[in-house]
Each structure stands twice: as C-alpha cells, then as structure tokens.
C-alpha cells in the first residue's frame, strides 16, 4: 500500500488546515520533501509561513489534514529529535539571561534524562556545533551581548547540536551580517550533503534562486509548488503577493 511511499519523504504534509479561534490561517496546504532537498517558503507577511512552521513543529494543532515526518507521526518525530526549528531573531527574547553555550545545550535536552544532566557526548556535541558556526570564543557570552548575526548562528548551532534530520528556518538571512550570511550559505551546502532536509522562509528572492531546489509559494494556501526553475516565475510570484510585484514590496534589489 501507500505505507512504503511514506518512508521516501522526510516531510509529508497533506491538506493541512490551521485556524486560530475560527480564523483560518492556512488551508489545504501540501508539501513533500525528501532527504537532501532545500525548499524555500515564500509569501507575504501574514500569508501563513510561521503558521506552517508552527504546524510542522507541532506548536499549533492542525484542524484538518495529516503530517508525517520520516513516515511517522509528529509525536514520534519530536521524541526522535527529527525536527529543529531556528527562529527569527525577533521571535526570541534577546535579553534572556542565557549564554551561547546554554542555548546550544538546549538542543540536547530532548535526548537527555528528566533532570537534563549533561553527558560527555552532549558536551562534545555542543562544542562541535559551536565550532561549526565559528562562535567558540563567545561560548560564555550572554546572548544579549551578541550581534544579530551571532545570535542567528547560536540558534543554528542549537539545531546542529540537536542532530535533527529536518531543519526549519524562519528568515535565516534577515538582519545578519555578510560573514554570517556566507557561513550560513556554506552550512546549507554541508547540510545538503549530509542529507538533511531544509525548509526556509525568506523575503529575499535572490536567496531562493541561489539555494532552493524547490519553492513553495503560499498565500493562506499553496499558490504554487515545485522546482524553483519552473515555479519561481514572475507570474506566480505576483499572484502570491496578491497582485503586487515583489519589487514594490521589497525594493528594487529583489
């Protein structure tokens, strides 16, 4: 039966709907992603990008449809540490009294015991992850003292330490410096080679063309989905943005 097909997909969202107190935020959305694929999630503010992420992480419940991660339910995916979420810089309290090391260690919590006692392997994983995002000398720095780019790298390190097979990144390039942008680009290539699946939301059309094998255009529901070269057309983009061309929305550099 269909069961065998499930295993082919890392993420499989089928006709999912999300509503907040009767207000529809997302309806009939579909997405299928395999190992090693990078997919761009593009849409206006309020088009349901964050809602889509929330549904895939299980942070909001879907009212209809089905989500399968690695062929299993969300609950199992959560227990398996399958999904890592990298929030927007605005999505977190940057003044919270925790250090880079503390945040990255949070990536290991799901696989620790109830007291979250660190094992040698956790410490090594955190160290490796911080090294990969080039923040080792800032390990003990409170996140409030970091730049936007350094903070972004901290959360990427958390996702790396978690050893998730699926990465969900909300605006990974927003408000970061050139050095961080370059580092994230390099990491994306490494992640792809490691067979990780990446879904990233972005406002930057150039990044979509540069990194994304696939693109998912949404405006409360899926407007278009497929290979970037085929789907990412001016017509589709215009209809995603409700008739406005992205140049108007994001300035001429888009």
């Amino acid at each position: 039966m269909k069961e065998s097909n499930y295993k082919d997909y890392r993420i499989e969202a089928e006709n999912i709907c999300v509503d907040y107190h009767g207000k529809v935020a997302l309806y009939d959305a579909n997405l299928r992603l395999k190992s090693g694929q990078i997919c761009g999630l593009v849409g206006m503010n309020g088009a349901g990008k964050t809602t889509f992420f929330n549904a895939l992480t299980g942070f909001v419940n879907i009212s209809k449809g089905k989500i399968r991660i690695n062929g299993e339910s969300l609950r199992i995916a959560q227990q398996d540490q399958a999904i890592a979420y990298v929030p927007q810089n605005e999505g977190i309290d940057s003044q919270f009294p925790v250090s880079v090391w503390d945040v990255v260690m949070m990536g290991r919590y799901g696989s620790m015991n109830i007291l979250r006692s660190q094992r040698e392997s956790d410490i090594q994983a955190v160290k490796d992850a911080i090294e990969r995002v080039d923040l080792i000398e800032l390990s003990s720095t409170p996140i409030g003292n970091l730049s936007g780019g350094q903070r972004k790298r901290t959360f990427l390190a958390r996702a790396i330490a978690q050893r998730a097979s699926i990465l969900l990144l909300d605006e990974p390039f927003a408000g970061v410096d050139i050095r961080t942008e370059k580092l994230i680009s390099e990491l994306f290539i490494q992640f792809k080679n490691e067979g990780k699946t990446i879904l990233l939301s972005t406002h930057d059309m150039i990044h979509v063309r540069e990194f994304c094998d696939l693109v998912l255009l949404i405006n409360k529901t899926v407007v278009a989905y497929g290979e970037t070269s085929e789907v990412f057309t001016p017509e589709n983009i215009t209809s995603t943005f409700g008739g406005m061309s992205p140049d108007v929305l994001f300035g001429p550099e888009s």
Partner: protein
Amino acid sequence: MDVCFLSTNITSFIADPLSHEFMRKALLMSSLVAAVCGFLSSYLTLKGWALMGDAVSHSVMPGVVVAYALGLPFSLGAFIFGVGSVALIGFVKQKSRVKEDTVIGLVFTGFFALGIVLVSKIKSNIDLHSILFGSPLGISLSDVKQTVFISLLVVILLSIFRKDLILYCFDPRHAKTVGINVLFLHYLLLTCLSLAAVVGLQSVGIVLVVAMLITPGATAYLLTDKFDNMTIISVISAIISSVLGIYFSFWFDLETGGSIVLIQTFIFLFAFLFAPRYGIFKFKKLFSNY
C-alpha cells in the same frame, strides 16, 4: 566613646527583637517565604507573568475564607481558587473576543470581591486585615507547618524542572519541537505560582504578595546576565528585604507587609539607578573611561 555607643545601639537593634519568640518565628518564616517567592520570581519576570501573579494572588482570597470557615488548611482553598482563576481566565479568553489583560483584570477582581463579601458574610474569627496585609508576627503553629511543607514542595519542583522551565520561559516552541511537554510545564509553573502566593500572603498579605513574586526577580534581572546568578540575587534580596522589613516594623511600629515590600522596592530602585551594566548611571562605563 561615640563608636562604642553606636555599636551598642546596632547590637541592640539586631539582638533585642531576637529575644522574643514571635520575632524569631516571624524572621525565620518570612525568610523562608521570601526565599521561595524569590526563587520563583526569576521565572515569572522572564516569562512576563507579573499580571498573572497579581491575578492569582488576589483570586486566592475566597479560597482562604472558605477554607477557614470549613476548618480546612487555608492553603488548600487558596490553591484551588488560584488555579481555578487561571483556568477561568483561559476559558473566557478563548470563548470571547475580549483581550487577555482585560480578562485577567476582570476575573481576579471578581474573585477578590467575592472574597471580601464572603468575609463580611461568614461571621467567624477571620481577620480581614491579616489576610489583606499579612501578619508574619502572629503566625500560628499550623500555619508554620503548612508554610514549611509548601515551601519545600515548590523548591523541590522548581529544582527538578529547573532547566525545562528555563527553556519553557525562553523558547517554548523549541521545547515542544524536541518533545518536551510544554503544557505540563505551563501548569507546573502556575501551580508553583499559586503555592508561592499562598505562602507569600502570610508575610505581606494578598494585596502585596505580587511584589514578593516579581520585585526580587526584576531587581536581579538588572544585575546579571546569568540565570543562576539571577536566582541567587533574587533570593538574597528577597530575604534581606523580609528581615529588614520585620526589624523596621518592630522598631518603628510600621505595618510589616508594607515595610517588607517597600524595602524590596528600594533595592530595586537602587539597582535601577546604579546597576553596573543596566542601571541609569552605568558604572561600568564610567570606570572604563578612567
């Protein structure tokens, strides 16, 4: 000669009250309560639950009255109404279009009013004044037992789930993503809040207990960038406030609860002005220039 006089004065300022049994008990109990509230305070200030703390602490009022009237432990009644008020806030918010802060204000004042009406209706030996403003100097033995038990419970719960609660306050979505039960942590923190409000109201009363739950944490937040240090500073400043408040109330015949909270506020003010990094006069900057 003068120095000798001064030191005798200070010694008697500290030692004299300790010769009274009720003062020793009040100091011990209030320090314990302050430590518990201060411990919880760092979570509440970071979670942004000041208004929630206010709501829960006021809502326990009818519970306290009913429990006293029925001869039950007052903490039980307070706890039921504390958690109940939060459940009701959640329900009304979900089922109506009224905004959350309005719902919170509405529910807790309703509960509080119910409590006041109940006190006037149930003619018993309930002292409205001590419920509203606390009575650490007149704490009874059964109250001591309850306070110690609840305090230990809260400290144990907060210690076991310390890391999860920090994560829950910081980034609940990540917690959910890695399979941590966020709903459980939400209710755990609410439970601790209700319990801490219950013990706190003995020291400073229902009206001011929210200060015990937020001021020490807010003070500590201005002084450090590390969560563990924040908790330690919060607990220490809460204990100092309680001890000093009781001393001042003894020597100058002041309302105890008011004195404790006022000293907490002064400590906050001090941090607000002079905290090395986050104070108005940033001393660190000042020093680094020279």
